[in-house]
């Protein structure tokens, strides 16, 4: 069934050193992602601070009916991801693959919902410059909000897509028995990436959909 535990890479002294290095490496990468999205959060902070009414009015044009369920979907996907990594730690191949597939399906579900939502935004003329119509004052400021909305959620969706791709690769590796209890770091660090993508959305949801009160 699974291969014998893989020895550590040549530059390391031990498998434990390699595991520690992999973990630190992924967390360092996630720190860069915090600052990458963070730059856009800076832009958002400027916009919301400068134009609070326009941003609130614009935010109310987004549907909690899309954003709320999508948040729930991603939280579920984090749950199944954690269970997948746990299965890897326990050497349970079928459970690992099963939970990975569940995570992938949740990820794809998120993207499908997002697709429908973007279509709705297009129909309702909320796409800056290309199809934008705003009733009321502060059209420019509202357009800024929607620029931020599309760029933030678009960038996030790209990260979800990449995550789905990575998870597919990990699922294939898992199916082939290449992920074992002794050698499960691939699953673990992919999981870290996936959880981060979830955390980004956990912040984007209230910042974009729930400004002020409804």
């Amino acid at each position, binding site marked *: 069934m699974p291969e014998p535990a893989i020895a550590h890479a*040549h*530059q*390391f*002294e031990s498998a434990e*050193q390699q595991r*520690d*290095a992999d973990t*630190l*490496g992924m967390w*360092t*990468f996630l*720190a*860069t*992602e915090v*600052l*990458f*999205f*963070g*730059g*856009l959060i*800076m*832009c958002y902070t*400027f*916009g919301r601070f*400068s*134009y609070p009414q326009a941003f609130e009015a614009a935010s109310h044009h987004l549907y909690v009916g899309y954003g709320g369920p999508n948040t729930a979907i991603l939280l579920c996907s984090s749950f199944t991801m954690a269970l997948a990594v746990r299965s890897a730690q326990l050497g349970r191949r079928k459970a690992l693959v099963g939970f990975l597939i569940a995570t992938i399906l949740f990820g794809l579900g998120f993207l499908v919902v997002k697709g429908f939502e973007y279509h709705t935004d297009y129909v309702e003329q909320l796409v*800056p*410059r*290309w199809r934008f119509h705003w009733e009321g004052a*502060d059209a*420019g*400021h509202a*357009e*800024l909000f929607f*620029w*931020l909305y599309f*760029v933030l959620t678009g960038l996030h969706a790209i990260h979800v897509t990449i995550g789905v791709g990575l998870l597919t690769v990990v699922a294939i590796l898992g199916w082939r028995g290449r992920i074992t209890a002794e050698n499960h770091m691939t699953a673990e660090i992919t999981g870290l990436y996936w959880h981060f993508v979830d955390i980004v959305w956990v912040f984007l949801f209230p910042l974009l959909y729930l400004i002020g009160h409804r």
Partner: protein
Amino acid sequence: MNNEPENYLSEHSVRSWLLTTDHKRIGILYLLSILVYFAVAAVAAALMRLTLLNPTGDLVLPETYNKLFTLHGVLMVWFFLIPSIPAVLGNFVIPMMIGARDVAFPKLNLLSWYLFNIGGLCVLYAVVVGGVDTGWTFYTPYSTTYANGHVVTMIMGVFIAGFGSILTGLNFIVTIHKMRAPGLTWFRLPLFIWSLYSTSLILVLATPVLAITLLAIAVERLWGVGIFDPNLGGDPVLFQHMFWFYSHPAVYIMILPGMGVISEVIPCFSRKRIFGYHFVAFSSIAIAVVGFSVWGHHMFVSSQSVYAAMVFSVLSFIVAVPSAIKVFNWTATLYKGSISYDTPMLYAFGFIGLFTIGGLTGLFLASIAVDVHLHDTYFVVAHFHYIMVGGMVLSFMGGLHYWWPKITGRMYPEIMGRIAALVTFIGFNLTFFPQFLLGYLGQPRRYHAYPPEFQVFHVLSTAGASILGIGYLMPLLYFVWSLKYGQRAPANPWKATGLEWQTPSPPPSENFHETPIVTEEPYDYHPEADELPPEPQHA
């Protein structure tokens, strides 16, 4: 190059170079790449200096002049200085200094080199198809709305290369944390490692903000709408906040590694333990951290709030302190040392003097009232060239000479080395000191034409630039010469401390035949007890 015992250079095929994961080879690949970009950027500088010989500045079209200084800035900052010491010397030396076989993620290391060059090719392509005239700072709304040209292409080049930077920093951080040899505690590490660790913090934390800022410009150009557009209520100054949040720490990327080299060279060539090791180590971290909080000093005249400006001004004064601490410690190291004037040490002396001048002039610029007059003048240009060329380039040259025997197994010709160092020092000062005067007298930067009474300063500066060029050309020639004809180097030609000198020159592929174990404090030099390093053979 070498037909002796197996070493990391033995395998000759192209494939073994282009698909290498050996940190030593990757360091050399980076060296070759940055030389190409440096050459292009130097040609741009030469054309600028030739144009500025005449007050009418009509050697090239005004728009061409703008494209030249943009190219010069983009290439020198992102494709020469930022990678120089970290990706060349850092890649080569860090694993060896800590007793490791390689960095933590060798394949990511190779990927970083490819990303770097894909980015570089994008930038060169943008130049070939017409160029960009926004300045390396890409200020909005010019870059987003009004600039013609290939802004998006050039920006994408910098964006892609930026990921190379991030990978390098990530690799160094994990390597230094996790792969030190047994007994090598943090406070036994060479100060070069502390400097590069601090540099890596900046690479990893600042570069992503540059990436998103550049992406925002590209989106705004392509989509026709964006957060920096004043017509929508967007703010062009927001761009400046985000750009300088990266670009100020970036200048510390462009000096900290140089300081690390100096901290290695000075103890070695004074045969004396460094003075105040802990102060120097902590000052590197302090510069990296505090350096993130000063960016607004680039924006004193941008319509930024005066209260914010005062905060940034105070913090800018504070960030000068750790740098000054280093200069005091290096100087104290020299005191009662047994000093020799080998080429690396000459560059180190040049560094200390020129960096000090550059740093002090930074304080003038950090004073808001003074900066109002000096902003966007040649004073600023002189200030940062004193640090980046007088500091970083000189320390890069010093480090290259210092580690050349280890990297290649050959000695460079010492007399030529000393002459080149002197020529560089003289050429540099003649080029840039007049620019302090020009700026003080009111000449703005990025202008191709100027009032005739300033011509004498420009002529001196251009003359200096030609001499500086010779100073750069000489090492290029004798380094290449040394590869075939240089005296073969022993493992430790400088009798230096440090693990990298405990292995042959050039080193075997896996660096050490056995993992070293460290029991001693760093810089265990004794000026009285030691004999001087053997006089290097003259060419």
